[in-house]
């Protein structure tokens, strides 16, 4: 099967600043991948290129074999770092909104997750705590039957018990041919749900390995390796 994501010598300049430097990357289907790197390493830039919010300065980027555009947006579900949702909206309105926008949105799954996390669909986003807002956004994004999920800094403000529930939901709900890319440096204990880790630094990919390869070869967790590699 063709890979879900292919970057061929992708570069991105912001004015005179180079954010990604001729990056090559191939990501197969059916993987859960963590994108890891210090602040300003290019993680969010890469994710925004994948969903078409940014266009590369050079190189080629393919999602499921197609150039990023209308067709690829149908199969990519994106959780941004900062919310774009209107805070005056109620949760059930947001769900209707997503249903209108995305043909692959599974409404009953969304309501099911809301009730299990005791979130009232009638609540407005602006009345919610940071963690609850994050839950709502993640539920919306994960309720789509997409082929590629791009999660930029999810569930940082969510409490540990809910985090477990959410990780479990991700594991049991996602389609085995779908790929999830999670960009985060906050969470150490998601390692066990990952297939691979991609270390990004200064616009380059410095390491791609599976979690167990890292543990086998270095005798330490991904988190410990990160602290060692990027010690300040």
């Amino acid at each position: 099967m063709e890979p879900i994501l292919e970057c061929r010598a992708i570069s991105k300049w912001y004015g005179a600043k180079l954010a990604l430097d001729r990056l090559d990357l191939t990501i197969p289907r059916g993987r859960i991948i963590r994108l890891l790197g210090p602040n300003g390493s290019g993680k969010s830039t890469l994710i925004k290129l994948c969903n078409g919010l940014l266009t590369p300065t050079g190189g080629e980027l393919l999602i499921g074999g197609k150039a990023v555009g209308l067709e690829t947006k149908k199969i990519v579900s994106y959780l941004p770092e900062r919310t774009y949702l209107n805070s005056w909206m109620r949760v059930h309105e947001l769900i209707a909104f997503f249903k209108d926008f995305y043909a692959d949105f599974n409404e009953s799954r969304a309501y099911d997750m809301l009730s299990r996390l005791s979130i009232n669909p009638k609540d407005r986003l602006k009345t919610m705590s940071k963690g609850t807002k994050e839950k709502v956004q993640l539920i919306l994004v994960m309720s789509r039957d997409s082929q590629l999920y791009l999660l930029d800094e999810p569930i940082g403000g969510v409490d540990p018990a809910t985090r477990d529930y959410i990780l479990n939901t991700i594991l049991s709900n996602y389609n085995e041919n779908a790929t999830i890319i999670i960009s985060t440096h906050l969470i150490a204990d998601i390692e066990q749900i990952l297939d691979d880790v991609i270390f990004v630094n200064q616009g380059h990919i410095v390491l791609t390995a599976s979690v167990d390869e890292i543990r086998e070869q270095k005798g330490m967790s991904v988190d410990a390796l990160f602290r060692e590699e990027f010690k300040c």
Partner: protein
Amino acid sequence: MTWEFKKDRPIYAQLIEQIELNIISGLWGPGERLPSVRDLAAQAAVNPNTMQRALSELERDGLLYTVRTSGRFITEDGNMIQKLKDSLAMVEIREFFEKMSKLGFDRSQTIRMLENAARGEK
């Protein structure tokens, strides 16, 4: 049952150990059918591919076997389970001797203390 993982060792290896423990403790009986890879992975909160790898290795060792279309089962070979039990016990014993020797007790002293402790004396 809760699954716990240490940070410094491969997850699939730790899964293998926990499944072996489940089998020798009888929590999972001989001939019993295992849940699907997906369900097991969700239960342990691990990546399904990692769970698959652990199960494949256990299958290669003969502790599990797959029946086409009906699933994966635990071996009915009691000898094999007993052997596994013995070998895990040996690992524990060796570790115990090592710890005792770090505390300055040789084998015979250790065994004597062990016997006393088993009789409930100090």
